[in-house]
């Protein structure tokens, strides 16, 4: 025997809403609602704390009083250089992964995506072991060219590239996989060689993903901390990027730390807004 529920009241507004969305009841069960609200609070409250504690009155002084400008400039140019390098060497790799077949490809894809899950500090140690003064490659760079990479701005860029480039690669690879290859076939029948097809058809067609991948890569590079501090250290003006400056300022000058954090928060919000079409629409994957 089927149990029947007693009829409940349905307001005109709710009726209209359900009709429009085509769904059944929209009410949320309590066991789902409570944890969801806790999650929201957990994610939002720290940001609220940052905004409440911000030294709004003398924020200018707080920013200029430290090495903030230096750190900001260093962060911006290293992140931008990282993104440029990632585009130049990462996009071709994404193309190789998406469009060709070769032995060891799966292993290579795994290696490429490893930095996504690897603790950045481990990446920093690895970089040090490879490019350090006595490292695998670094020792030759040192003895042949007198080149020392660690604890230089170049080391910052390398650390950021190691951590951030995979974001660009997987974004672009996904776009290349899902792109309609019919257009590339059409271009081939029109006489375009493979490189011309890549330049004139493939790249323009995946431009939105290329842009998103670049922004993502840039944002990740800007926030890089662990690999950078391990491989490049924290010399003000040389290798002390924004996140590192925030970390040290927190001990000596909390107001400056908060002000610097606000700047990074602002940058993040701008990044998020620029990616809103891809991420905030819900349900879609970059």
């Amino acid at each position, binding site marked *: 025997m089927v149990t029947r529920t007693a009829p409940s009241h349905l307001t005109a507004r709710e009726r209209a809403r359900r009709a429009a969305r085509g769904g059944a009841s929209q009410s949320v069960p309590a066991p789902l609602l409570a944890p969801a609200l806790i999650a929201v609070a957990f994610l939002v409250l720290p940001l609220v704390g940052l905004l409440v504690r911000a030294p709004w009155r003398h924020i200018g002084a707080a920013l200029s009083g430290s090495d903030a400008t230096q750190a900001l400039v260093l962060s911006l140019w290293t992140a931008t250089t990282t993104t440029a390098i990632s585009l130049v060497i990462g996009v071709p790799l994404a193309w190789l992964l998406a469009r060709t077949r070769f032995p060891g490809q799966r292993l290579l894809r795994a290696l490429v995506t490893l930095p996504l899950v690897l603790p950045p500090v481990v990446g920093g140690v690895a970089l040090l072991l490879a490019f350090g003064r006595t490292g695998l490659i670094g020792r030759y760079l040192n003895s042949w060219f007198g080149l020392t990479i660690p604890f230089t701005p170049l080391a910052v860029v390398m650390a950021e590239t190691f951590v951030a480039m995979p974001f660009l690669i997987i974004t672009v690879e996904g776009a290349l996989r899902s792109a309609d290859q019919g*257009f590339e076939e059409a271009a081939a*029948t*029109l*006489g375009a060689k493979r490189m011309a097809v890549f330049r004139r058809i493939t790249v*323009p067609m995946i431009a939105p993903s290329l842009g998103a991948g670049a922004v993502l890569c840039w944002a990740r590079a800007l926030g890089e901390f662990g690999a950078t501090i391990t491989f490049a250290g924290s010399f003000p003006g040389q290798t002390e990027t924004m996140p590192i400056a925030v970390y040290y300022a927190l001990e000596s000058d909390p107001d400056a730390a908060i002000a610097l954090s606000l700047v990074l928060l602002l940058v993040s919000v701008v990044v998020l807004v620029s990616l809103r079409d891809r991420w905030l629409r819900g349900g879609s994957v970059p």
Partner: protein
Amino acid sequence: MTRAGSGGLVVEAEVTRGSFTLAVSLAANAGEVLGLLGPNGAGKSTLLSAVAGLTPVSAGRITLDGQVMDDADAGTFVEASGRPVGFVFQNYRLFPHLTVADNVAFSPRARGLSRRAARSAASHWLDRLGLTDLADRKPGQLSGGQAQRVALARALAGQPAVLLLDEPLSALDAGTRLDVQAELRRHLADFTGPCLLVTHDAIEALVLADRLVVLEGGRIVQEGTPEQIARQPATDYVAKLVGLNLYAGQADGSRVALTGGGNFVITDHGQHGDVLVALRPSAVVVSTEPPQPGSARNTWPAKITGLTLLADRVRLNLEGQPSALVDVTPAAVAELSLSPGSQVWLTTKATELEVYSGSDGRSAEPHDAAAP
């Protein structure tokens, strides 16, 4: 079997894709439009793909004006970008990020012309196809008919030696299709090289093609002029396409014993053995009473299993010995109160029956139609 002459396009090849194998031998001469007709999965698009160099052949060879494009035995292969081929794809594949003018200039540019020369070549073709006003539009802003013309202009602008058209009208709605078809016919007439036109629309094939090749299950089942194929289809598929009833049977002078049951009296041309009998749906008379003896020699009972309203007539599906499609007027349906299940009598004159052995010697026996 080798085709004579080195000019035009000659395909004598097998193309294997997974479990599907296309095995064809055909030739298209300069200036000829060769229609490739066949159901989905027959291998029509695979054939175009092989000619364009997008799919290598697994055996045999493809030559164009005597030059080898693909030869599996010799290991010769000309890349798609190196073949003088103009391809109009089914959904046109116009580059969405380029304007109409840049789409049309793409091939001249890719084939080595300077930017300026490519642009002027493009403007020539835009002018010829009446697209000059649309030059600055993006493909997304074009109607279906316009997109079709742009695709054709883009393919022709590369000055190809062979033109490949994959269902060029299938993306259009019925209204614009006739106009575009007439226009396409004019442009194809101007093209001097061989042209392969894939279609599964009978009218399109009859209007546009000089000669037809019917493909089914990766094999050529019939070849001939549109008239021959329309009058004497070799398989059920073609018969349905051109709207004919087709029966296989054993002829013995003036009588054909049909393989599926039933008999026809035919005009005696001394035919014996395996034959095909084609019968137009409009050449059959339907009556609700057994007809009086008359000049019509073939009369048989049948049951209506379905009625379909076509533009100006009603097509009856009838089950009997043999089964048939019959066209009658809507008025006749009302007067005779025909409905599914009605028992009727069918009559047709012996002179209405087209009797022939499978055309150009190919067998008309059923074959596996399975293909990916």
